[in-house]
């Protein structure tokens, strides 16, 4: 059958162009993530600025020597982002490839029927489709890998000396990462093509003879079962987005939409007509014949409409949920910071000198300590504080133990950290200070979390001074003397700000950091989805030459046909966007609830601009890429063309 595959790929160039571009871009992104990851793995930080410690061992693990780098020259941030980029790209690629192949099969029923008629077995048809997919996938994967190799130095130059990787990165050997990307591309293509091939194999000989190549509205029971399973999985994940999930809620909010998208795509042939019928009501009411035609075109071919809707649904749901979740997380961070600061004034930089106008200065010393555990050792942020003053300037509500004992070799641990590591008051935590002194710190108190204000470990100020002589105060909290207005004091002290202003700046910083992450994560995914959306719609329209010619023959004007396509693509886009909106809103409501429990008066920032922008972009792309080929076809489809 490979003989046939080769010939038919050529013939169906416009159908496979979509799959080709989609897969090539997918492999390009995967390959880029892989080569960049290889570069970060190949990077070895400066050896001088690290501490050698021996882990504790126990519980079946032997103590071992590990090197903990002391500097910020750490590429793990970039690695995390790259692996997320890889995951999201991989996911969307599977998804888009499956839907483009499904589309290609759906629009070739007659051809498969004909082959079956002249003696092809279902198995031969399946193999032919898989063969075509393999040919396309090979070409696309190699193209994508080559492009990734060419773009790697560019990306590394961009990524070097940034917050995510504050070092210079050099390309590493590309063979292994690119081989992985190509293999992933082939695998993804084959997975995506499998269900399409199976469906092609089910086409009967009689389908060659039926007048319209309309697909049966049936949807396979296996597909329904899997769709329901994924839906159930997504619902379980949704219920986990609750206050008790803590920091885990944000990743959950980012990945649940993916599972939801899979579920809805599997069930799309059932869901799309349902939602479509709803949106078609105003459409049919407002327009004349073109809206009616659009409605029946969308509803009569639910599989085809589902394929067209899939990429729009995917990107709108994933991007929407991510943008909303991160915005709500930033809101919650802002509220936490606001509640954690009690002093009216915050000074950035060196601590202010005591004066008559100042009642107390809480000048903590930030430092880093290496915390030694059973089988690893990790650099942790800590701060040396004077508990008597700090308890007045920030929220240090004690959950257990007492801050009065914070002297000597002791530590107060944040509630979250204590929860992770199951620390209790009285436990001893072995640490190594920047001056390489190993010390066992006794836990004297567990205090309320205050992200962005207090680090997880608070030690006595003297201890910090002793073991981190180079540590400098970076920000201090100031209580003005009685009768001194904070607003006046701020003007006299260099680097001073009203606490409210400082809090707003911090929240801004969180948002800016999120934005960088969003651009890195969603940029490629959005680019990719844009290509996918344009692809499927372009393919869909180019396949309709015959239909257009016939309609012209029946007396439809080009303007009427253009309007029909306009309504059709808007309808599909609206269906997909409304499903994406449902997912986004659900995730948003849950994450909002999870983030605001226990914190009063959390501001709510809904990034309307970005959300509406995503929706508008999807619609414009959908309509544009359906209309452009239609206009092109109509120009070349005089009614006389129907005769030949």
């Amino acid at each position: 059958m490979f003989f046939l595959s080769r010939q038919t790929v050529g013939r169906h160039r416009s159908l496979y162009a979509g799959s080709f571009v989609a897969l090539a871009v997918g492999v390009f992104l995967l390959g880029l993530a892989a080569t960049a990851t290889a570069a970060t793995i190949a990077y070895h930080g400066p050896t001088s600025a690290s501490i050698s410690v021996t882990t504790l061992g126990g519980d079946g693990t032997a103590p071992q020597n590990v090197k903990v780098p002391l500097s910020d020259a750490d590429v793990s941030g970039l690695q995390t982002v790259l692996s997320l980029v890889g995951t999201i790209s991989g996911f969307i690629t599977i998804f888009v490839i499956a839907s483009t192949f499904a589309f290609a099969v759906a629009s070739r029923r007659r051809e498969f029927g004909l082959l079956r008629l002249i003696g092809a077995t279902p198995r031969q048809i399946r193999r032919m489709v898989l063969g075509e997919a393999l040919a396309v996938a090979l070409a696309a994967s190699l193209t994508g890998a080559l492009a990734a190799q060419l773009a790697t130095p560019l990306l590394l130059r961009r990524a070097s000396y940034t917050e995510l990787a504050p070092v210079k990165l050099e390309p590493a050997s590309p063979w292994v990462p690119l081989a992985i990307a190509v293999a992933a591309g082939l695998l993804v293509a084959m997975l995506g093509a499998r269900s399409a091939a199976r469906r092609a194999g089910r086409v009967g000989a009689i389908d060659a003879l039926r007048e319209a190549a309309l697909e049966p509205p049936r949807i396979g029971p296996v597909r329904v079962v899997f769709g329901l399973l994924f839906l159930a999985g997504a619902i379980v994940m949704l219920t986990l987005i609750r206050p008790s999930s803590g920091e885990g809620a944000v990743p959950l909010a980012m990945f649940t939409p993916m599972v939801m998208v899979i579920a809805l795509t599997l069930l799309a042939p059932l869901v799309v007509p349902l939602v479509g019928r709803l949106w078609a009501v105003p459409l049919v009411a407002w327009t004349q014949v073109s809206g009616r035609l659009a409605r029946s075109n969308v509803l009569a071919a639910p599989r085809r409409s589902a394929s067209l809707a899939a990429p729009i649904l995917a990107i709108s749901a994933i991007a929407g949920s991510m943008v909303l979740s991160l915005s709500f997380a930033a809101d919650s961070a802002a509220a936490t910071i606001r509640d954690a600061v009690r002093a009216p004034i915050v000074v950035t930089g060196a601590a202010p000198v005591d004066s008559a106008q100042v009642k107390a200065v809480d000048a903590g010393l930030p430092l880093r300590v290496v915390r030694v555990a059973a089988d690893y050792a990790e650099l942790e942020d800590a701060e040396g504080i004077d508990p008597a003053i700090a308890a007045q300037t920030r929220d240090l509500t004690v959950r257990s133990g007492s801050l009065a004992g914070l002297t000597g070799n002791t530590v107060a641990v944040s509630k979250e950290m204590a929860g992770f590591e199951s620390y209790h008051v009285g436990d001893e935590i072995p640490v190594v200070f920047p001056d390489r002194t190993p010390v066992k710190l006794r836990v004297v108190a567990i205090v309320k979390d205050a992200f962005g204000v207090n680090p997880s470990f608070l030690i006595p100020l003297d201890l910090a001074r002793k073991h981190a002589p180079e540590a400098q105060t970076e920000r201090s909290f100031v209580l003005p003397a009685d009768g001194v207005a904070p607003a006046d004091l701020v003007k006299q002290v260099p680097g001073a700000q009203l606490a409210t202003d400082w809090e707003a700046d911090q929240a801004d910083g969180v948002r800016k950091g999120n934005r960088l992450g969003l651009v890195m994560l969603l940029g490629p995914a959005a680019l990719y989805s844009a290509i996918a959306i344009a692809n499927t719609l372009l393919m869909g329209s180019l396949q309709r030459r015959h239909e257009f010619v016939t309609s012209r023959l029946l007396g439809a004007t080009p303007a009427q046909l253009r309007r029909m396509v306009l309504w059709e693509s808007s309808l599909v886009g609206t269906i997909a966007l409304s499903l994406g909106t449902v997912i986004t809103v659900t995730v948003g409501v849950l994450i909002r609830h999870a983030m605001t429990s226990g914190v009063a008066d959390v501001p709510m920032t809904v990034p309307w601009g970005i959300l509406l922008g995503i929706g508008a972009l999807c619609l414009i792309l959908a309509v544009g890429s359906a209309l452009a080929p239609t206009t092109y076809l109509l120009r070349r489809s005089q009614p006389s063309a129907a005769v030949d």
Partner: protein
Amino acid sequence: MTATAPTYPSTAPAGPPALLLDSITKTYRSKAGAVDALRGVTYHFARGSFTAVMGPSGSGKSTLLQCAAGLDHPTTGTVVLNGVTLLGLNEVELTKLRRAEMGFVFQAYNLLPSLTVYDNVALPLRLTGRRPARNDVQRVLEQVGLEGKAKRRPAELSGGQQQRVAIARALITRPSVFFADEPTGALDSGTSRQILGLLREATDRAGQTVVMVTHDPVAAAYAERVLFLSDGLLAGHLDRATPAQIAAAMSDLEG
């Protein structure tokens, strides 16, 4: 026109039936309701016979052909092709039987546009896993008068030429039964004559059986026997009739 129960065609060459339909009914069910397309058809097509099936539009001609060829399952009744009962076969066995024993020609030429004439004709052989012998392909192309057109693509041929490619493709596997549904429906009369001549030749020279659905009395006159179908039932037959006789019988049926 003899509106009697169908009888074994006296004019057909003697021999065992190539195709046997026994009390075939077919009901299409859809949201709009049920349609009885065939309401009990029994008929034996003798080996080497050329039979035309005529009837008003919607009388069930195409349905009859599709059930007879095993493309669709009759609601009740059995179909036996060369001694094999189609009912018990699974999809793969049916496909193998189809590619060994049956040839198809339809109004729409049903060629693969991406393949050359040569490859289109050779395709059924390739599907059986055999490597087509160049000579065999050339021979059938000659037989249908398309020598020298082997390298063309369907789009570069006229309608009549495309239909001849379809016939060549049906001929190449030497099927015992040809099924044709309006094979000349889209062709002018001159080209139609060539196509019908080819089908006639298949029965005369190679002893192949032809079942052809048509609405054209001139085309039907190429057959030894014309069966009339009305409302899903056999309404009678004419043997060795002229186009005029057939046309008269048809207008009786429609009137």
